[in-house]
């Protein structure tokens, strides 16, 4: 089963993704994508890792150039997040990598197809009416395109707000 959860920042999507993963079978993996920029990031990562350890998640860290071989085929993967993946792929070269959206989308879909279960989260960045600079606009558009590609073939697509879920496609794991 593959699930895409989309919501604003701090909407509760990561917590819900974890909850849904726990309802699924298979060995549970937490796929972290954040590439720490400073001590604050490192502290947050350490805290999250501790929180998940108690739930039986094995953490792997790979923020770009995804390879499905990183997890066994019977894994139930919580992928957090599409937002960070695209940011790493698009901006970590220094400039803007215009092919990042296409590449990240392909990597994400191919990885998801090889997992037994795949639950991923993404930020909702598309409804604020802001006129961003070219780089940010390019990023927001590519992120929307990746999500639409996922939505086409995933079983379940949800919007999250206030820790609550609205299913746009499919159903949640029982």
């Amino acid at each position, binding site marked *: 089963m593959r699930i*895409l959860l*989309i919501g604003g920042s701090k909407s509760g999507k990561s917590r819900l993704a974890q909850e849904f993963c726990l309802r699924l079978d298979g060995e549970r993996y937490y796929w972290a994508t954040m590439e720490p920029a400073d001590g604050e990031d490192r502290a947050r990562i350490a805290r999250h890792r501790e929180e998940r350890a108690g739930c039986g998640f094995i953490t792997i860290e790979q923020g770009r150039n995804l390879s499905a071989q990183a997890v066994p085929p019977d894994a139930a993967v919580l992928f957090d997040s599409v937002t960070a993946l695209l940011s790493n792929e698009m901006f970590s070269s220094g400039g803007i990598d215009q092919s990042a959206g296409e590449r990240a989308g392909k990597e994400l879909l191919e990885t998801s197809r090889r997992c037994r279960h795949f639950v991923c989260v993404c930020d*909702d960045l*598309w*409804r*604020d*009416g*802001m006129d961003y600079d070219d780089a940010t606009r390019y990023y*927001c*558009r590519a992120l*929307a*395109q990746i*999500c*639409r590609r996922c*939505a*086409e073939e995933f079983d379940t*697509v949800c*919007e999250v707000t206030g820790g609550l879920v609205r299913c*746009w*496609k499919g159903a949640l794991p029982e």
Partner: protein
Amino acid sequence: MVLIIGGAWQGKLSWAIKEYGLQPEEIWDLEQGYCTGYRCYTHLEALTRRGDTAPFPPDAIVIAREIGGGVVPLNADERLWRERHGVLVQALAAQAQRVVRIFCGLPEVLK
């Protein structure tokens, strides 16, 4: 009238083309001003940004981006644009027979 709303790049026009079998020559982009005689009008936010109004035909398919989902900007022009846009979207939604919101390429019929 049919009103289709949703965030940026959510696939609103793609969905309308599929749902209503629209041909390219039936679609008018409001970025280019207003022009009568089309079946579908897209980018309503470009029209409201200019402060224009348009006499959409009663059977038109109108596509509007949601722009009010962020912090209200300090800049007065930006604020007034959101105000004009929100008010027009509400008016169109009130008169439309069908209102559909698109999220991630997926439709939800609101009316």
